[in-house]
């Protein structure tokens, strides 16, 4: 079993009020030095069987037709390493 991650972010030209709300809160939390925040969605898909070219193509289709609305969102598909990235 393998994990495929689909990240979906609003297109850059679309207003992202959630990201902005986070950014606006930063100074209050004593944070500076962050010039922009965007908030999007992350989908973790557990795939049965091998994640080969065919599987990725299908997941790409899934992302395009369903997980993202490409009128407003961009997406990326990645196969996740088994070991988690550093915390």
């Amino acid at each position, binding site marked *: 079993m393998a994990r495929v991650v689909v990240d979906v972010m*609003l297109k850059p030209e*679309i*207003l992202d*009020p*959630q990201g902005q709300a986070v950014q606006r809160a930063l100074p209050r939390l004593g944070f500076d030095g962050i010039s922009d925040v965007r908030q999007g969605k992350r989908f973790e898909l557990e795939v049965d069987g091998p994640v080969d070219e065919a599987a990725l193509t299908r997941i790409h289709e899934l992302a395009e037709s*369903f997980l993202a*609305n490409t*009128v*407003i969102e961009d997406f990326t598909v990645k196969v996740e390493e088994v070991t988690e990235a550093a915390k």
Partner: protein
Amino acid sequence: MTARIGVVTFPGSLDDRDTQRAIRIAGAEPVALWHKDKDLKQVDAVVLCGGFSYGDYLRAGAIARFSPVMEPLIEQAKAGLPVLGICNGFQILTEAHLLPGAMLGNDHLHFICRDQKLRVESANTAFTSDFVAGQEIHIPLKNMDGRYVADARTLDMLEAEGRVVFRYLDFNPNGSLRDIAGITNEAGNVVGLMPHPEHAVEPLIGTGRTDGLPFFTSILKKLVNA
């Protein structure tokens, strides 16, 4: 003879009964459609009502758009069947690409419920012929994802073709581009809007106004006179 107007219930639909009531009050016959139905029971028009179909968990309307009932609906809407999408219904129509653009979360990030002032920009659709263009009306609005967006070219096209049907007045409740509250397709048979006309059909209920009734009488007249 009266018109038979279908109201689709998806899992998570909330305003199906209210919409049926509004159709009845207008004098037409409501017909319950179920999301798993594979045909539309020969109705003369369809309303996709408000609610949180499938919890709106992915994007508002995104899962409902793939329901079995949507297949005949999309096909027949393209062939001219009058379809009104209210709130979640509007969201489903954009997800199904029967209407251009997309709906996003309100810019203030909160659910909002209010008595909303609107201007009817077009009386040339199946659901607005009982209004006059320019008329100002109040309709309850309640949504989480009511921000209408589309690229500038699409917006310009909508404006140029007179396809912006409703605009928010005095206050834009969700950050919709160009204050757009509702639009129609090229043929004028598919209309979507965020506010809820079915909640403004009885004098005592809700905000006490009946500005929503003409939506349902418009379509009734059109169908009966057809």
